[in-house]
């Protein structure tokens, strides 16, 4: 316990007390201040505090504050011993809200900000922060695409997307400095994460704030005895889902089915086919011959017996042929069922009057799901993500006016494993395309390929083992020195601040190659299929390891100086901020390799009257190097107002509505990050640039001379400037029913103009690489609702939090070339990234959809069915001939039952690219929601988070029957006339479907989902015997993430990254222990 002494005087008295929570448990670390003085202390481990020799105590008031609890002011009066009961604040959050370049009292905030605290973050046993934000914050969309250790971060979108050509990522600030990487911070280091949503909150970030801002605040030391917290947890991971694949017998049968169906496609238009009978005769005579792959009855029988070496009577099964007719379950050969991860964190915080500290050490070890026992370097080729985190945040109070803060953070990451740099491709071609009939895989420790099957696939184990490995080693150092000097002597409430930050990053890589040795299997001439002949097919090359090499590095210097003013007099609260900052980043990977600079000024003025009327002005005056002299700086202001109705005299005091605030804001924010073809463009104003590329060889044989090429690059745009978002926001905050329920609602509207984008209407005869111009416009709007209920049944405390967000956007203008009559293909007027594809009208379910049929249901080829137009009438094509349904295949492809039917949008009698329309939801969800709830009873606590999205579609590009890949269980739900007649579940067209027409809405799937994102059960013990060894509390807990998922199209995979090729998402079960000393 630390006590601060004032200069002692007579008439003093000792004042002591204890602070407890609503459950009468002592609260350590509560800040106790004597109001109107700088006297203060904090409670000890038992909640006790004491002020020795306090002068005139009877006239003094004590102020108790503690993060997450309502502030209490208590007059001492004539008591010398106080008992204070603190209530958890109904928002569950600190009363102070972190805002851009500062913090504000929550009550006086007029901007739209959502905050999540550390407690919620560490509930999710995920390796990185972005994944633990899902469902926690209104207005935040998270999308996780991969579960690969070290590459499993989510993409974040604040209030959807507002531009179609530039970066849509929010700006991330860690402790007041823009930082490129935040996902590698140990969640235990974090105090709060806020997202700034409206213009009022983001205007201070000027040309970098248009996509919203994520503010991450790390923990700082509090005065008091050292508090040590140790947590350790270990988790088991598994895939949320991996497709089930069909076995060899089904695979071969389905391929035969496909070949059989393909015959109609290839021969329906043959001159010698007049009737269905002609066709059947010809098909039955020829289809096996023309089959791309035909599997005979003998093959099928052997595939069926691939796991049956012995007959029931114990004799050798003559159809058992595991080498040449295998049935290999690759998924179980390639993947483990489970992998493990562990996480340890030790942190200490405490301090004295003049020095406070928070120091944290963290370790994470995350393992991947690949089996590696058959590889040359089993340890190196297994995916791992090891992370070491160190943070030290120190505050030195040189005197009561002068504070120096030093923040140091360091993250060291080692990410290793298979060299899957081109992951999507590898995944698709080598892992998902591993069909069960190709090879038995490994026989006698040898990679084998049967001789007869070399054309139909690869040996995935050999392919994977041959990829080698690499280890990526990343070191990120962040540092900041901040000086704060109070100038109350000059003006009450004035302070001056300065900060210098230096960040650096270095990345190296090492690796190894493991050329595989593989063997060809040929049948033994003695006829014994169980005794095949191995012939070595590749040279034996010893595995190699490579020394590490440099991959990337950068360093960034940031400087900031500011004047702050905060003062209250009478009923007036006034605040002001003037801040100047500069940033320079040196990164050799930038094109061109020149340092990147930012420079800006920030201003803020806040005014509050009597806690009822609030007004705020924020502005950013920024410069960006991307723009030419004269257009380099921009002034981006935002204005906001607030009205706390419940503080008005006329507002009746009641228990129903205890608090009500209306607020609104309008302002401008910019975005200077222009991305063309995935590359950020710089210096767009430069005159016509040239690049060195291409070249040509002149000369004759033996005298050839290569001359490198140079060609024109981008033409300059001398008028380029940033895109500007005008954002408005209106909302209210209220507390109801004795503050048990709090609610926040916001409606927002954004108009993004001057979007830097390419002109699409320039004729191709120009052929200059024209620069982006400020010409696009997008509107983005939506609303958010947060509800928070906290109450108790006797000793059982419970809480429910919910958030629901909605966003929509529309391209108002985009320069695009749309041919006459094809207006339905334009992106203008539609959501960003809405797909342009054929619209399906379902499957043709019988021959009767295409031709008149005879009594047996067979088509009468001379009597095709007329196609009907939008009004239900037959219609004619451009040549004046009637349009038949059978001719509506994509680009004239032959149709049959089970094919996908397409809408002839332009009614010209053919299905081609002109029939593509803008359709479907985009891959950014329109609705996101989170519902968390929990309760505590004595030492037990349980909490859970349900999270979900809707209004989102994803296109499936990897489908069964595309080529030679394995067939998933989706393939079993394909259309056949028989399955259709039996009313079986059909999720897929016929096996021989026209894959070149697959870009259509049949494969655009609703990716809405609801999932049990996290669930946690904990038990806290505080027995007195542990206190003797210095332990104040111990909590053991179990939690998990991605525990249950509900979605409509689960058969296609995890809805969050539906249709994505790559490492699947992960479900985690975790147990942990947290000890506080």
């Amino acid at each position, binding site marked *: 316990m630390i006590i601060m002494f004032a200069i002692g005087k007579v008439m003093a008295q000792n004042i002591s007390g204890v602070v407890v929570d609503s459950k009468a448990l002592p609260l350590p670390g509560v800040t106790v201040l004597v109001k109107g003085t700088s006297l203060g202390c904090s409670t000890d481990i038992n909640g006790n505090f004491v002020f020795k020799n306090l002068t005139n105590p009877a006239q003094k008031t004590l102020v108790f504050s503690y993060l997450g609890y309502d502030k209490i002011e208590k007059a001492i009066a004539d008591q010398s011993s106080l008992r204070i009961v603190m209530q958890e604040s109904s928002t569950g959050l600190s009363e102070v809200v972190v805002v851009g370049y500062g913090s504000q009292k929550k009550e006086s905030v007029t901007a739209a900000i959502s905050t999540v605290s550390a407690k919620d973050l560490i509930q999710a046993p995920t390796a990185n922060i972005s994944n633990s934000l899902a469902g926690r914050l209104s207005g935040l969309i998270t999308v996780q695409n991969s579960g690969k250790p070290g590459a499993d971060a989510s993409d974040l979108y604040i209030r959807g997307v507002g531009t179609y050509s530039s970066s849509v990522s929010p700006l991330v600030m860690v402790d007041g400095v823009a930082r490129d990487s935040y996902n590698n911070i140990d969640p235990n280091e974090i105090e709060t994460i806020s997202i700034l949503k409206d213009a009022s909150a983001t205007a201070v970030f000027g040309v970098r704030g248009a996509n919203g801002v994520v503010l991450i605040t790390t923990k700082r030391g509090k005065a008091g005895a050292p508090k040590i917290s140790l947590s350790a947890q270990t988790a088991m991971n598994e895939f949320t889902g991996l497709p089930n694949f069909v076995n060899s017998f089904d695979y071969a049968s389905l391929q035969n089915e496909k070949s059989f169906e393909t015959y109609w496609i290839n021969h329906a*238009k*043959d*001159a010698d086919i007049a009737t269905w009978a002609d066709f059947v005769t010809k098909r039955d005579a020829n289809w096996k011959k*023309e*089959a*791309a792959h035909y599997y005979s009855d003998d093959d099928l029988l052997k595939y069926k017996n691939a796991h049956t070496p012995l007959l029931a009577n114990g004799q050798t099964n003559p159809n058992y042929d595991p080498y040449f007719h295998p049935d290999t379950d690759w998924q179980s050969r390639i993947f483990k069922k489970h992998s493990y991860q562990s996480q340890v964190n030790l942190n200490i915080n405490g301090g004295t009057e003049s020095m406070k500290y928070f120091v944290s050490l963290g370790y994470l070890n995350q393992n991947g799901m690949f089996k590696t026992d058959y590889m040359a370097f089993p340890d190196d080729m297994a995916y791992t993500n090891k992370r070491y985190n160190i943070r030290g945040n120190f505050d030195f109070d040189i005197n009561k*006016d002068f504070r120096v803060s030093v923040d140091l953070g360091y993250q060291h990451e080692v990410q290793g494993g298979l060299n899957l740099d081109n992951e999507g491709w590898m995944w698709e071609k080598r892992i998902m395309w591993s069909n069960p009939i190709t090879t038995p895989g490994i026989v006698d420790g040898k990679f084998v390929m049967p001789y007869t099957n070399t054309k139909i696939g690869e040996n995935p184990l050999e392919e994977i083992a041959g990829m080698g490995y690499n280890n990526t080693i990343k070191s990120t150092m962040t540092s900041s020195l901040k000086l704060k*000097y109070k*100038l109350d002597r000059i003006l009450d409430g004035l302070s*001056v601040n*300065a900060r210098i930050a230096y960040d650096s990053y270095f990345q190296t890589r090492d690796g190894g190659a493991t050329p595989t040795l593989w063997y060809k299997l040929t049948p033994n001439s003695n006829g014994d299929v169980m005794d095949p002949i191995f012939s070595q097919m590749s040279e034996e090359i010893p595995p190699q390891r490579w020394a590490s090499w440099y991959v990337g590095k950068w360093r960034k210097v940031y*400087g*900031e*100086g500011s004047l702050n003013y905060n003062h209250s007099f009478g009923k007036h609260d006034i605040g002001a901020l003037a801040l*100047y900052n*500069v940033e320079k980043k040196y990164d050799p990977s930038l094109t*061109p390799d*020149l340092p990147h*600079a930012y*420079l800006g000024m920030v201003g803020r003025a806040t005014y509050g009257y009597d806690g009822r009327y609030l007004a705020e002005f924020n502005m950013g005056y920024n*410069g*960006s*190097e991307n723009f030419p002299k004269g257009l*380099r700086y921009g002034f981006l202001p935002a204005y906001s107002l607030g009205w706390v109705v419940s503080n008005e005299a006329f507002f009746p005091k009641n228990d129903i509505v205890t608090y009500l605030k209306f607020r609104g804001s309008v302002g401008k924010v910019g975005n200077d990050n222009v991305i063309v073809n995935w590359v950020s463009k710089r*210096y767009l104003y430069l*005159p016509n640039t*040239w690049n*060195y590329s*291409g*070249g*040509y*060889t*002149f000369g004759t*044989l033996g*005298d050839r*001379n*290569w001359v*490198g*090429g*140079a*060609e*024109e690059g981008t033409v300059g745009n001398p008028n380029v400037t940033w895109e500007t978002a005008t954002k408005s926001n209106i909302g209210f905050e209220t507390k109801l029913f004795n503050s048990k329920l709090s609610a926040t609602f916001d409606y927002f509207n954004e108009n993004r103009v001057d979007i830097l984008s390419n002109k*699409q*209407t*320039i*004729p*191709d*005869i*120009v*052929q*200059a690489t*024209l620069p982006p111009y400020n010409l696009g416009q997008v509107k983005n709007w939506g609303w958010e609702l947060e509800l928070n209920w906290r109450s108790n049944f006797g000793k059982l405390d419970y809480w429910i939090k919910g958030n629901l967000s909605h966003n929509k956007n529309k391209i108002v203008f985009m320069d695009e*070339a*749309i*041919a006459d009559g094809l207006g339905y293909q334009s992106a203008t007027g539609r959501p960003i990234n809405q797909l342009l594809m054929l619209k399906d009208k379902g499957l043709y379910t019988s021959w009767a959809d295409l031709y008149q049929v005879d009594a047996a249901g067979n088509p009468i080829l001379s009597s095709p069915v007329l196609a009907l137009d939008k009004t239900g009438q037959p219609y004619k094509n451009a040549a004046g001939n009637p349009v038949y349904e059978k001719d509506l295949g994509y*680009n004239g492809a032959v149709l049959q039952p089970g094919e996908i039917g397409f809408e002839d949008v332009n009614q010209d009698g053919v299905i*081609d*690219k002109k029939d593509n329309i803008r359709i479907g939801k985009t891959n950014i969800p329109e609705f996101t929601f989170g519902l968390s709830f929990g309760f505590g009873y004595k030492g037990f606590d349980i909490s859970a988070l349900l999270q979900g999205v809707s209004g989102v579609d994803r296109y499936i590009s990897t489908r069964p029957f595309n*080529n030679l890949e394995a067939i998933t269980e989706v393939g079993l739900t394909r259309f056949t006339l028989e399955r259709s007649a039996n009313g079986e579940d059909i999720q897929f067209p016929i096996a021989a479907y026209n*894959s070149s027409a697959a870009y259509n809405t049949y494969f655009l799937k609703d990716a809405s989902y609801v999932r049990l994102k996290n669930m946690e059960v904990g038990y806290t013990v505080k027995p007195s015997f542990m206190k003797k060894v210095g332990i104040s509390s111990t909590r053991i807990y179990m939690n998990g993430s991605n525990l249950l998922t509900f979605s409509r199209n689960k058969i296609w995979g995890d809805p969050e990254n539906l249709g994505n090729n790559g490492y699947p998402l992960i479900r985690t079960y975790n147990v942990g222990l947290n000890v506080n000393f």
Partner: protein
Amino acid sequence: MNKIRTTIISTVAIVAMLCLSTTGCSDDFLEKPKGGAVTTDTIFHTQNEARKAVAQMYNTCVTSYFAKDWSGSRPESITDELYLLHGSNDTWAGQVINTQYYVTGNMSTETNCDYGGYSSHYNGIRHANLVFENIDNVADATVEWKNDVKGQAIFCRALQHYELFRYYGGIPLIDHSLHEDVNYPRRSIKAVVETIVKWCDDAAAFLPETRPSADFGKVTKLAALALKARVLLYAASPQYNTPDNLKGELTGARFGDARDSVLCYPTYDKERWKAAADASKAVLDNAAIAGVSLFNTGKPLTTGETYATLGDYESVWNVYGNSEIILANTKSIEAPSGWETDSWSLYMSSRLFYSSWGIKNNVPNEFLQLYEKRDGTKWTLPESGNDLPVYIQSLNLDPRFYQTIAYDGMYYCGQKGYLDYYRAGDGYPDGKLCGAEGTIGFAIETFKFIPRVDDMNTKHFTWPVFRLAEFYLSYAEAMNEYSGPSQATYDAINIIRSRAGMPNKAGLDQVGFRAAIQNERTIELAYENNRYNDLLRWLTAPKVLNQSLHGIITTAKKVNGALTRPWVTELFMNRIFPKRYYYLPFSNAEISKKYLGNKDWNGQNPGW
């Protein structure tokens, strides 16, 4: 006191820091540091830099349209010279020219067969125009060098306009680099031809007659004359210069109103044939001074697998930089930028090069039969036979057949031995070149541009843009159309035939000579990217490209303990050629930009 001093010092220090950083509040902090970006001035300042722009001009303009990457088939896959397989697995092979849509009559505005695409031509034109406009700024080069570069730039511009002309008809003519505000509609055939011809003349005035061997691949005066001759030959042909009696052939490819000026000349003019003949004659007359001559060592037959034993015809594309080449694409093989150009080209061009993988470029039976027998007579392929190699050798065909076409059982070279295209039978597994995938097992493909000498070393062959033989045939064709057969036309065709080892043509009337010269051109220039335009301009495309194409399948059979290859013919496909194919469509995107036509017409070609 002490405290106050500390306060003051600290305040001063902090304010000073603020000021110090504030003084940086100027444009200088955000100004681009020197270096990093290259602009037009940098490139056209020194000759050494400018020559890089020139090299890239060749890269963008002088393309041979030979398969060049993973998605580019041989351009002949849309003619009757090739049948590319179009199973579901092979559609990508013809992606660049959309073969699968073209041959089935389903080419669309978005899937036309322009190799490289409409914009690639204007990309080359822009590059050539930029070189032309900026080359005078080079500080350290001689006027001669600059004039030479100007000649090359004008030639490159003309060559790419010719490429557009041969696909689309009249197109916008662009003789300077454009910015975005443009109004350049399609121009008439007359204007396009006159302009290209003028550019060829301009280029010829700047270009040297010959170049040192280190500059082989750069254009000479003769190349400009060659381009001019080819354009004038096309312009004189019925597609553009349509005699009244042939106008009916082009129904469906004409508007029937003033818009037709972008498709053809308004009236037939026989003198255009004279102009074409004169231009070809100019090439022949100027060849000697340029060091160009027909490659003729008096060896029509290939008798072994060394250079010395190659037939003259095969030598023309096997002997690098031989005397017959007027202009070649010298980039194609062995560029340091990579194996893609190399391996993929060979992969796309033949199955025989890599055996187990590679695109099968089947030759239809209909095309095989265009080769005459050695005695100059025609032949017909039977439906089936007992042993394909024996049969084919017994036919004793035009020696150029055996120097172009690979067939099952053919002895190729030491490295490959006998080619095995047969399907499995009698205990023999599928031949190495058959492939396991059903329809791939056809027995004939072309090996033109696949080397067999020097251990199949790919460095040795040249991909011609222009070679001299073409202009003998062009001259003969134009003169026959102008004034009927004459000694001059017979001399021109027979010099080519005798080099190939074929008997002379004689005693034909104009129609008979027309048939002879067209067939001669087809055989001599096979697989050199001429057939597509020849079929169009002769108006024979609707006949040749509307027929059923067939292939030959062989199956291994053991006869007296030895492998034989009995064969049958089988349908490849029924080709479809709608009349609107005469002029390729512009894409919807280009049409929607509304610059190709005029206020009453969107500029699209008829039927699209």
